[in-house]
């Protein structure tokens, strides 16, 4: 009653706060870089582009902000949100704390697809690296799905099929790289696998952002169904949840989100596994709250990690996957220890 409405109020204000923080982070991300550009210029540039405000901005600054940094920051945010959401969904449905978006073989398939295009020259120049990665990840996901259906139902079968699929596709990637790639190519692929936002432009935004938003809406729509899986599949079924439909829809959406993100930026680790756990420590396991906040925190985390990857070593961009793990792992360790004290 009073307790409930205050909880709802708290929930809405927490989400609003995170949303504001994300907007701030995007502005900062657009201003920080090799040439620092004042936040005011960033704001003016956005105003000019969004509602033709006609503010006076240096065209070179405006170009850097709009064409390079802002698009990159928005993709980072979409990607962080999508990976965190996939993590939440897979951990809830598979009842496994170690489930992450790459569990279903998607990143392994993406890397195989990418090297097939980049090194073997598959598609004869018709396919880009991203499209190759996307096709690879979809194929790997299809393989894992078929395998898990053959292996019988149950969450264990899906996890084992995912491991088998990931190993197989990783082996194919390694095979192609060692057999055909030059040292230079191998390094490039390695860099791409660890996550790379540098080539990102607005067309990528129009792919990543809608995908993340659609994913968020679909997941939120099923927040109560995800809650109902607390005590497992059978219990969810006895609470009136159409288990099979929810499985197909939500795992499908998670896989699609992950495949799209991986094909744009490579496989950035850690976000999808750890952000859901970290957010759970603070807001509990009910998905009405967990989903939007995980999405927002995931977005914030990746925008921040991208900024760091650009500034931490002057003149050099680190793979963002390195930053997410370097910062994320100790931060998560802190939360883990702190969480145990709280309990």
């Amino acid at each position, binding site marked *: 009653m009073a307790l409930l409405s205050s909880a709802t109020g708290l929930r809405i204000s927490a989400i609003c706060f995170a949303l504001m923080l994300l907007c701030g982070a995007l502005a900062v991300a657009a201003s920080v870089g090799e040439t620092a550009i004042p936040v005011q210029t960033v704001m003016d540039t956005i105003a000019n582009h969004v509602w033709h405000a006609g503010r006076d901005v240096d065209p070179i600054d405006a170009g850097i902000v709009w064409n390079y940094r802002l698009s990159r920051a928005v993709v980072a945010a979409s990607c962080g949100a999508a990976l965190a959401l996939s993590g939440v969904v897979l951990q809830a449905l598979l009842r496994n704390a170690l489930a992450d978006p790459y569990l279903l073989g998607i990143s392994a398939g993406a890397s195989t697809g990418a090297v097939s295009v980049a090194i073997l020259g598959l598609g004869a120049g018709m396919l880009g690296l991203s499209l190759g990665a996307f096709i690879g990840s979809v194929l790997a996901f299809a393989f894992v799905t078929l395998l898990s259906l053959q292996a019988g139902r149950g969450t264990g079968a899906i996890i084992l099929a995912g491991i088998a699929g990931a190993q197989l596709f990783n082996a194919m990637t390694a095979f192609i790289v060692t057999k055909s790639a030059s040292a230079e190519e191998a390094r490039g692929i390695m860099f791409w696998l660890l996550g790379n936002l540098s080539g990102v432009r607005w067309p990528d935004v129009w792919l990543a952002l809608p995908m993340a938003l659609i994913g968020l809406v679909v997941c939120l729509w099923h927040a*109560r169904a995800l809650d109902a899986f*607390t005590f*497992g599949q059978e219990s969810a079924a006895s609470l009136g949840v159409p288990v099979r439909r929810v499985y197909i829809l939500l795992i499908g959406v998670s896989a699609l989100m992950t495949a799209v993100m991986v094909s744009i930026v490579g496989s950035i680790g850690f976000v999808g596994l750890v952000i859901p756990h970290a957010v*759970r420590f603070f807001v*509990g396991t009910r998905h009405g709250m967990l989903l939007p906040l995980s999405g927002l925190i995931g977005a914030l985390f990746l925008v921040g990690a991208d900024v760091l990857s650009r500034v931490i070593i002057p003149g050099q961009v680190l793979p963002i996957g390195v930053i997410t793990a370097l910062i994320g792992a100790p931060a998560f360790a802190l939360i883990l220890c702190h969480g145990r004290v709280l*309990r």
Partner: protein
Amino acid sequence: MTLELRDVGWNAGFKKIISDVSLRVEPGEFLGLIGPNGSGKTSLMSVLAGIRAPSRGQALLDGQAMKKVGRRNLARRIGFVEQQADTIDRITVREAVALGRTPYLSLLSPWSEDDQAIVQKALEAVEMHLMADRMWQTLSGGEKQRVHIARTLAQQPDFLLLDEPTNHLDIHHQLGLLDLVRTLPVTVVAALHDLNHAAMFCDRIAMMDRGKLIAIGTPEQILTSQNLRDVFGVAADIERDDQGRCHIRYQVGISGQTGIKKDRVA
């Protein structure tokens, strides 16, 4: 208010787990389901709960095929407590019970004060209201089982289905739980391991053996020395108290008796 199975069979893959079960649950009764390990009790319970669709025959709620009734409507009529459902999630007792409102909630009818009151009532019914804010992981086995029952009560069902609800509980909690269930204003179907519990609490008992329902009737009719020897492979004397209740006294070490069951299995 009827729950009925007609010639129901259920397969796991190609293996027949239960076959030819016809059963009608009468309103208001406490129906016990007994049978040796692997006799199909759990499968029968989940068909009865509408979680598994029968491979053959029909499962009916109020004379209508469960498939047509729909999952959400089924969940509003039938509450099901599985054997030992556990979770790694950090949730409170109240949150666990609130899950029972799932079949009533949607985007158009979100969580309301009514739901809150129903959850509170369910917690009080199982006497867990003072522990409502405890974390699930801190509960004992008996407390967890009572929370599960409260969760199904929050579904406001007409039928409460329990699959071996007293497993792993000490004797005090076993009796307390069954006594609690008996006093609830719902029709109960419970798979029970302890035959004396079945004798004490059930209005009727259904006995399963190797996937078939072989007998159904009052405890006096079902719990006979003959049945216990044929189905469970144990020797036992049945005693009756002044109120006509039966009580089973098992015997061990009588040669030939336990051998019967072994032969049948082989």
